[in-house]
Structures are given as structure tokens and as C-alpha cells.
């Protein structure tokens, strides 16, 4: 679907825990076209501080609203946290390819969503789109305060399992180890993995998917300047040559990536 540059009203922008924020924008144009896994590119302020746009995944949509969640970690996201309801943001979207849902949600296939930290952001939208198949969601984070969106996934009918590095909640260890453990206990022949999180996690999932002969769709992140495929700042190596995370991705099949 074609992306557009729109000036969107901020409906709300709330700090919901720690450094995490919830932003809702009013844009029917983007909400109508958005697919799970796509993102928008936000001009945080009208001046050049910061200069470049910042990409954020679409977290959920309803008729004319887009919701995002973000961690205020640097100049851009901290600047975004200062923007108030009623103000307007210059955004471009929806961008990127989105998850491919054409081969999923058959009755006997299990959809497994794996999120690392902030990686929950696009997966809530995906869980909503896969609602009928009652996906299994594995969320991993450093500790329990960084486990996000558990309630949202549950209210969408997903089964949720948790992993924390420090063992403060759920499985103690990496979410990828939880994934391995889970796969060893179920019949996963027709499963598909959908994952978003840090690069090391995605790489580990690629290996797990290959070992278990499961398809995995991975949402990649790279620093990007334009977000529309022009600057070639965010390319990654694939078996089909270099591809742009912003335009050809951010979702890639694990088997096409070269790590």
C-alpha cells in the first residue's frame, strides 16, 4: 500500500511505565492502510533538533487511530515524549512490507510470536490480525519491569509465556531458550515463528528455525535516514543480494538472511 506524508494530531502521549510511552495519533489515511509489521517515520519536532525522522512500529490501529509504543532512550524519543495531546506530528507511513499472513492461520498450524524487549511493539498488531488462530506469544526481557504488553496479548486471546534474564518473572534465561524448550514439547511441523527484537535474538531464532525446519519471519532494525528506500543506509545482506530494511523489509524470511 502506498505511503503518504501526513500531519497527524496527537490524541494522547502517556508514560505507562519506566521509560516506556504510549502514543496515539489521529490519521485515517495511515490507519486504513496499515498492515502488521509496518512502521511510520516521525518528525519529532518542527526544527532540526533532531534533524532526521525516527521510525516506530505500528502497535495497533482502529478506524482512524494509530497507536505506537516507544522507549525514550535518546534525543529523538525523549523529544517525542515532550509532545502534547492536541499538537501535530509530521509522519510518513505506513512504510515497509509488513508480515506475510497469506500462508498462516490454517487450523492445525501454530503461530509463535517471539518478542525481545521493545520487540513487542509490532507483534501486538500481529496478534490482533492472527487472533483467530490463538497464537502463542513468548516475551523476553532483562527483568520483569521490562516485560511489556502482557495484558494486551492476553486480551487478544493469545497464550503468553515469559522469560527474564534475571528470573524475576517466568522462565529464567533467554527467550530463545524458552523457544527451544517450547518447540521440544509440541508438534511444531506447521508452525510459523514471527519475531522482533535485538539482532542477537533474531540470529539465534534463525538457527532454531533452521534446525527445526520451521519458517520464521523476522522484523529487522537498522539505523535509517530516509525510511523510503532512497539513502541505502539500512541495507542488509540477503541471499538475493542487498536489501533495504525500510523498503524491502523490515520483515524478512529467516532463510534469506546472511548473518
Amino acid at each position, binding site marked *: 500500500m*502506498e*505511503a*503518504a*506524508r501526513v500531519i497527524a494530531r496527537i490524541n494522547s502521549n502517556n508514560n505507562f511505565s519506566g521509560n516506556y510511552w504510549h502514543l496515539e495519533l489521529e490519521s485515517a489515511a495511515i490507519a486504513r492502510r496499515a498492515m502488521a509489521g509496518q512502521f511510520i517515520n516521525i*518528525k519529532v519536532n518542527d526544527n*532540526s*533538533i*533532531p*534533524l*532526521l*525522522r525516527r521510525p516506530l512500529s505500528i502497535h495497533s490501529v482502529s478506524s482512524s487511530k494509530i497507536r505506537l509504543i516507544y522507549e525514550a532512550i535518546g*534525543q*529523538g524519543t525523549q523529544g517525542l515524549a515532550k509532545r502534547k495531546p492536541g499538537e501535530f506530528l*509530521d509522519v*510518513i507511513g505506513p512504510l515497509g512490507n509488513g508480515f506475510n499472513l497469506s500462508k498462516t492461520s490454517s487450523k492445525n498450524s501454530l503461530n509463535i510470536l517471539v518478542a525481545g524487549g521493545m520487540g513487542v511493539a509490532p507483534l501486538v498488531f500481529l496478534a490482533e490480525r492472527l487472533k483467530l488462530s490463538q497464537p502463542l506469544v513468548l516475551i523476553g526481557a532483562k527483568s520483569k519491569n521490562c516485560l511489556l504488553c502482557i495484558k494486551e496479548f492476553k486480551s487478544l486471546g493469545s497464550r503468553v509465556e515469559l522469560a527474564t534474564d534475571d528470573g524475576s518473572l517466568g522462565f529464567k534465561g533467554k527467550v530463545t531458550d524458552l523457544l527451544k524448550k517450547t518447540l521440544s514439547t509440541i508438534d511444531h511441523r506447521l508452525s510459523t515463528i514471527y519475531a522482533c527484537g535485538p539482532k542477537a535474538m533474531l540470529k539465534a531464532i534463525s538457527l532454531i528455525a533452521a534446525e527445526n525446519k520451521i519458517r520464521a519471519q523476522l522484523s529487522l532494525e*537498522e*539505523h*535509517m*535516514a*530516509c*525510511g*523510503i*528506500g*532512497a*539513502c*541505502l*543506509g*539500512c*541495507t*542488509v*545482506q540477503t541471499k538475493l543480494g*542487498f536489501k533495504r530494511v525500510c*523498503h524491502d523489509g523490515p520483515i524478512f524470511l529467516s532463510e534469506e538472511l546472511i548473518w
Partner: protein
Amino acid sequence: MVKRCQPDSSVKIGRLHLNNPVMVASGTFGYAEEFKNFTDLEKLGAIVTKTITVKPRAGNPAPRTCETPAGMLNSIGLENPGIANFIKDKINFLKKLGVPIIVSIASENSPDEFLELAEILDDLKEVSAIELNISCPNLHKDKLISQDAQSTFGLVKEVRRLTRKCLITKLSPNVTSISEIAKASEEAGSDAVSLINTLGGMSIDVNKRAPKLGSWVGGLSGPAIRPIAVRMVWEVYNKIKIPIIGMGGIMDTQSALEFFIAGSTAISVGTANFINPGISSEIIEGLKKYMADNKIRSLREITGILKI
């Protein structure tokens, strides 16, 4: 009633006629198709392609961009599909726009690759001009061609012999005297000079004590470099007769005007395309309004009219 005459924003770069002086800078506009949803491509003065090399090039390791105060560093490393794939996959879309297409070229190993590319492009009627990118800071060479007046002269002269197309030489600001290099390009037969390419730069993540860019160093662009670019345009304008295509941190009509007043015949919009993909059309309109408001009939009237 006096008929109000339309301001004429057309300009000439050598034998190349542009309907308006607003071009888009190499490497910041892809191959134009990326921008089709966001701007009136048909209205652009000219489109400069991402730099093309003989063979396909993969480019540099990630991260390739990082933001710096009022600017950005990039170390793309001339990722491009190579001349054959460019002609096969990219040129069709470009030629349908009816806008002059300027193909930027560079060599990887030997300057002879410029000659090979120029010969190929000379045969393509859809190509209006060739820009010699002898100033890319991301190839990690000890010395760029545009950092030496003699090498610049030698290369431009050889390419000049191979093509009658409008020939533009793109210069690096990473030099002691840019006007010396500009003069060498002029004497060797360049129809115009483009300035400036990015400035060599580096940014460090202090927590990791490591460079922020995957290839450690990169090229600085954006508003941060504008004063340097304006000064260089002004310096060069006083030393050469051929047209200058000015660029470096142009973000809006106001900043574009600085470049005309300093001596540019045309301007190129670079990094600003990433922030507002429709900015080039907005600047075209902004210049028309400026001309009408100030009763300027041709942009020539303001090129180099700096009052000192």
C-alpha cells in the same frame, strides 16, 4: 493594464537547459522512483542519480548513518547495482519523467573506469549529463582525485574527449583550496562544477568507546555544513566562469537563495529529501514566489549578486 510577466526560472548548465534550477543531489534521491508518492518528479529541474560504478557494489558495513548536531554522517560506500543493471532496471522509470537525467559516476580501482562509464553513457540519449563523482569520502582511499588539481585536470580532460554531453565535476570540500580544483576542472573542459560533497567526519559512542559508524568514518551533510558550502561557492564563483551547482545543507527556499546570491547557477537538495521528501517541489515554488515578490525576471539576476 500592464501584463504581468511570468518570472523565468530556467537556467543553463553548459548546453543543458533546465526548466528550473532545483536539482536533487546524488545519493539522496535514489533513482527517483522512491519519491514518486511524495513529490512532483516531473517538475524537478534535473535528477542526479546515485553514483554508479562499473561493477555492482555492496557498500560499507552497518551502521551506515548516524545523526550529529544539525547534520548526519553517512558511510554508504557507493552501494549501487553497477552500470549494466542501472541501464536495465532504473533508466526506464527515469526517462519517462521527461526531466533531464544526470548520471553520477565513480571509479573503484582505476580512473579508467570513469572512461568506460562515460563511453557507455555517451551513447544513451536518455542521459542529459554526466557528473564525475571524484569526491566520495567513503571509499577509504588515501587521496581522492578531487584532492589534487593535476589529477582532476587529467581525468576531466580524458572524459571530455569521450563525450559531448554536459559534463559536471563534483568537488570535495576536504581540500586546502577548492577554487584551485574548480579551476583545474574548468581548464580541462568541465561544463560546470557541483559543490560540495560531504565533509569527512566521525562520531563516537562514549559508552562503547567505539565509532558510531560501522566503517568508523563518514561524510557529514545537512544544515551543519551549509556555511562551509556557501563560503566555498562564493570563493569558487570569483575564480571561474563555468556555472556552479551549489549544495550543502539546503533545507528550504531561504537557504537555497543563499547559494544563488553566493554564485550558484543551480542548486541541489540533498539530506533535506530524507526529512521532507516533497521539499524540492516546495523550493521550486518558493523561488518563483521570491522572484515575483522581488520583481526578478530571471534567476541570473541574483546569481553572485552578493553585496560587499
